[in-house]
């Protein structure tokens, strides 16, 4: 009895040794840190970004990876909170020793995390966050593959000035850098076209009851209500507007237009507007069409919205930089600096358009168009409504609820 026990212990030990040996022999993966809100109110959007990233990584890894090494993404959950983001990005940089940090969502979180990356001398490529502050501080380890808010809203602003020209507007913003920066831009536009500002209201991320603010807005009757927010809040606001019988032209940034948004808000999101880089609206471009096809093949029944596409581009830029920087030397700081230097020279044609960085590390070659949710055979769908040469449909004025 004792003998068999001893034998089996030896056998197990031998197995552990051999398998451990074989693991050690395989080349270590190249690690890229990815931060994002993978739990909490915008978990869906974080997950969308991740799906786009995994598509890119799986494609590279199935072809053998880079320099014969697999690419491994190390995920860190920011829970949409700047303090959590700082803690998790520090952990990824110092403990997981990633070469470069990608991902990111929420301006408030990324203003904090990108500064940490800069201080730790680790290149960071922000995927989703539009506050200009992120790349405007002269931090030379910081890059961003998403347009900043002036770039994001340029098309919408032109439409507001040349077509819509509202007389009275209101602001209903997420109380973060994302919302406040957008407010500044739109406030300037309102002044320019002589629109009256009726109210500036805010809400916190994770709020679910907006009846107080909507009741107040209803009383003021703004023609256009600027509403910067994410998926969950946007769908709740649209739903509660119907409940409280409030009609306005909602204009957001466009990040809310995800599958979950259409599922949650149903037809109440009709007429809502935003600026978008939805890949499915740009199927004439062969690169985009190919991305959509591969995405739909990998994730059956899903349609890639803006976030998978932004996640995909973000990872493609990072992997391209790792490739251009040459085989990692193993000296972390040398490799990180090399990657930072080649990131500056990035020039790729991806799903959001051409990606090139200016001196501050900000992409300047991506320009979203104004889109509106319109019903097609009873189903809400996004259409580009401006400029005329790119428009897929005419702009529709929001109708009162009882006439829809």
């Amino acid at each position, binding site marked *: 009895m004792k003998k068999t026990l001893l034998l089996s212990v030896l056998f197990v030990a031998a197995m552990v040794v051999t398998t451990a040996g074989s693991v050690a022999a395989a080349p270590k993966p190249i690690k890229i840190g990815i931060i994002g809100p993978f739990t909490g109110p915008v978990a*869906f959007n974080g997950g969308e970004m991740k799906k786009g990233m995994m598509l890119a990584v799986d494609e590279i890894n199935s072809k053998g990876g880079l320099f014969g090494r697999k690419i491994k993404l190390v995920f860190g959950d920011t829970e949409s909170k700047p303090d959590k983001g700082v803690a998790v990005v520090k952990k990824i940089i110092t403990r997981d020793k990633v070469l470069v940090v990608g991902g990111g969502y929420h301006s408030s979180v990324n203003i904090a995390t990108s500064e940490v990356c800069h201080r730790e001398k680790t290149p960071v490529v922000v995927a989703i966050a539009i506050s200009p502050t992120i790349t405007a501080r002269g931090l030379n380890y910081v890059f961003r593959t998403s347009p900043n808010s002036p770039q994001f809203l340029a098309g919408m602003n032109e439409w507001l000035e040349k077509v819509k020209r509202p007389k009275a507007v209101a602001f209903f913003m997420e*109380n973060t850098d994302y919302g406040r920066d957008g407010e500044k831009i739109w406030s300037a536009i309102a002044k320019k076209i002589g629109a009256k500002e009726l109210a500036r209201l805010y809400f*916190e991320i994770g709020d*679910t*009851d907006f*009846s107080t603010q909507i009741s107040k807005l209803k009383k003021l009757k703004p023609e256009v209500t600027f509403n910067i927010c994410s998926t969950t809040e946007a769908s709740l606001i649209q739903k509660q507007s119907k409940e409280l019988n409030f009609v306005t032209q909602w204009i957001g940034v466009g990040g809310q237009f995800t599958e979950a948004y259409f599922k949650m808000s149903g037809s109440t999101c009709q007429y809502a507007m935003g600026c978008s880089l939805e890949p499915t609206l740009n199927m004439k471009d062969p690169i985009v069409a190919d991305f959509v096809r591969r995405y739909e093949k990998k994730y059956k029944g899903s349609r890639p919205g803006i976030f998978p596409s932004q996640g995909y581009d973000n990872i493609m830029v990072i992997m391209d930089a790792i490739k251009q920087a040459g085989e990692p030397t193993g000296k972390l700081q040398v490799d990180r600096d090399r990657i930072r230097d080649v990131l500056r020279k990035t020039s790729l044609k991806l799903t959001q358009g051409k990606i090139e960085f200016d001196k501050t590390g900000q992409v300047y070659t991506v320009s979203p168009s104004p889109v509106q949710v319109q019903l097609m055979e009873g189903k809400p769908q996004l259409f580009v409504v401006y400029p005329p040469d790119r428009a897929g449909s005419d702009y529709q004025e929001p109708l009162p*609820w009882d006439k829809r």
Partner: protein
Amino acid sequence: MESLFLQQVLNGLIVGSVYSLIAIGLTMIFGVMKIANFAHGDFSMLGAYFALYATALMTGLLGWVGSMVVAAIGVGIIGYFVERYLFRPLLSRWTDIDIIMLSIGLFIVLENLAQLIFGATPKMITDPFHSESVNLFFFSTSVIRLLSFLFAIISIALLQVFLTRTKMGVAIRATSQNSNASLLMGVNINFIYSLTFMVGSALAGLGGVLYGTIFAIFPTMGAMPTLKAFAITILGGMGSIRGAIFGGFILGVAETLGGNYVSMEYKNSIGFVIVILVLLIIPQGLFGKKET
């Protein structure tokens, strides 16, 4: 201006009714067992998920009402097991602070389990009336909000009948007043503990369904109702059911009026300002007994 004021009061009363429902469960459990259950809001979250799956099987208004029954029973059963196998074995041996730590631990475990099982993506219970609005005089609200308000009021009324007209209800109140005396009078204390925890959890579950119908459902949704329920019980008096009912409505209205006239950014802090003021001025709460 006046119509906006009344509209905001209505908004506050509707939300307040849901707050009350959740707070009553918390205060009952505290009154009878002296447990400050920080996982209380997670029972609301569980209730909301039960209802979400139930409405996938049953549709329409009946489906929605049915889903509330499913949620109340489901969460009640979970409440029974939590009380019987987590809290009760420790009640006699551990100190108050241990029990609080246990409930905080339970809160973390339930939230993370929910994330694992249900996923982190927010969901909504299908509104059988498709957000249809009701416009009366200068008020606007939705059919579903009015119905939720009605159901909350009915549930509270039924609970009152149960507590005042039935033998079991009287036993619960007696235990809440003095557990030793009740024990001497032949009340089965352990049974009352189980019953109270089940009823309290079921009420939280019910509140969660209403919350999830009007708003949204996600694994971390329980945290806010827990904090608000604590604010309400402190306002109304720890252990006082009447206090929880009124406290819920007061908090709901205070939040909407504060949001409208002061600032929306501070909406969620209004409850906590109230708590501080109450503790400073009337520490026993509006309907609580003075400590002797």
